[in-house]
């Protein structure tokens, strides 16, 4: 069974049909790509899945559960974590605090935490230990106590990933993870995402413009254009699919991503 599935999802902004009956199914264990030209609706679908965007018709199921009535803060508790297109960290906080906030779903009894009761302190200690492990996994140990706003770009990207994974999700949603990255940073990020998928056993759904990333890491992709599905398949087939070529470049030119 699919980990995540969307059926006939509609989103209208006034007269504009941002999503016009879109389907998506993400098998567990995969790195799945969601691509399309600008304005295709991929970010809108991404936001429907992460619950930041309501949809007017259709259904989205995650592990068989209908997401329709849930809010953005419910996603993390179900095991879905997301990142943002332009890095969106808690800027005044340290790396460690950012990762700890990512573990919010595991806070336990808020009263015990607020009053520093023994049970609250025990849990806080456990969370901090786990946060340190996450930081180590992402090479952030050196900057654990740094305010994230002062960190270099590549570090901020990794803090955001570590924060998303801190809650040990089963599905990681990445919104254009290499936007603004240079070639070297893109390569580094590809490796990190592969490692997350392989070593942590996390399914990844990635919305992306960058075809080199899609080719390098995705097992399968869905292509959207003007709010509709136009193709689905392995990256190599898809990038030569006539409808995809047309959507991206017009009829005559082949994509050479």
């Amino acid at each position, binding site marked *: 069974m699919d980990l995540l599935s969307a059926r006939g999802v509609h989103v209208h902004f006034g007269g504009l049909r941002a999503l016009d009956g879109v389907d998506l199914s993400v098998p567990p264990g995969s790195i799945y790509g969601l691509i399309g030209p600008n304005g295709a609706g991929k970010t809108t679908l991404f936001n429907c899945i992460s619950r930041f965007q309501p949809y007017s018709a259709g259904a989205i199921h995650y592990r068989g559960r209908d997401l329709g009535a849930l809010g953005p*803060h419910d996603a993390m508790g179900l095991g879905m974590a997301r990142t943002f297109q332009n890095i969106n960290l*808690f800027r005044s906080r340290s790396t460690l605090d950012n990762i700890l906030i990512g573990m919010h779903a595991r806070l336990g009894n808020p009263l015990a935490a607020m009053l520093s009761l023994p049970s609250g302190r025990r849990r806080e200690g456990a969370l901090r230990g786990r946060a340190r492990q996450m930081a180590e996994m992402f090479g952030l140990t050196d900057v654990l106590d740094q305010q994230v706003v002062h960190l270099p770009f590549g570090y901020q990207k990794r803090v955001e990933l570590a924060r998303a994974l801190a809650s040990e999700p089963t599905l990681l949603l990445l919104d254009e993870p290499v936007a603004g990255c240079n070639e070297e940073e893109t390569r580094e990020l590809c490796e990190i995402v592969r490692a997350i998928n392989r070593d942590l056993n996390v399914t990844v759904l990635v919305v992306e413009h960058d075809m080199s990333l899609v080719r390098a890491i995705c097992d399968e992709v869905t292509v959207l254009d003007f709010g509709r599905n136009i193709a689905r398949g392995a990256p190599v087939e898809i990038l030569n699919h006539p409808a995809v070529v047309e959507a991206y470049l017009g009829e005559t030119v082949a994509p050479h991503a």
Partner: protein
Amino acid sequence: MSERGWQITLTFLAFGALLALPAAIPSFYASLLAFMFTYVIAAVGVNLLTGYTGLVTVGHGGFFAIGAYTTALMAKHLGTSVVPGLVAGTVLAGIVGFGLGIICLRLGGAFLAIATLGFALAVGAVLNNWSIFEGREGIQLGKNSVVGLGIKDVGFYYVGLAVMGLVMLASWSIIRSGVGRAFIAMRDSERAAEAMGINLRLYKTVAFAISAAMTAAGGVLFAHHNRYVSTETFGDTWLSVDFLTAVVVGGQASLFGSALGAAFVVMVPYYLGELRDFAYVLNGVALIAVLVFAPDGMAGVLARLLRRVLGRTAREVAPVVDPVSVGRG
């Protein structure tokens, strides 16, 4: 010693000094300081909401009034004193704060500030017009006692110090917990906070409720300190403005800052004596000066000075990121 170590040490030293102080000063000054403590308590409450959670309130004078009038009416009709008043006043203000939080959920920035200002005005109007509150006539409170023991200036000083210590400890405990992290996360980025599983509605209203309850504790003590409440003090919005000024001038998101700021708004009019109305001007000037030149307030300025003095220690704690030496690994 780490920066945190310094903080804890200085806090203990400060409280130790405050414990010993009444022995060294006339009881009149002990009473003045006790008055200041009530403002510190209120400012700590405002700071939790405005400094840490990022929700600007210009209405906490309303919660201060709820605390003061709850205990005043209880004293008048039930003959109770400080402790029952504290319990009832904070609980009632917490409930009202929760309600106001729900009403203000969709508001932010200037709109929230105006809505909370409206709340303070509404409280003032109720106090002025509902006869049980006695309007400008006011309500007299009897002699103060704690669990049956009568207290005067110095005794009240210690009660104030204890409540201030408790409120600060509670605020500190909340802020360093996962709940406090959620408050700060909402201030830094609501979208990201939501994505981390933080229920904005719940956490905002809870922040409102706790903050209101804390400020009301200050109001309860204020009523017992003056042994008199009337709309002369509680009928307008100056208290609300004073508390916000204290938090901003003292230093947002800093407990020490709230204490400094409260000392500022209490002591300046006191030492101006005859010219005390001039304090409003001075507060305004201080507010603008801080916002323009030192957004982290008096506490921030002091911390920077201390770090410079303690040079090396500070650098150990907060090394400047150097992308070259850290590497791009």
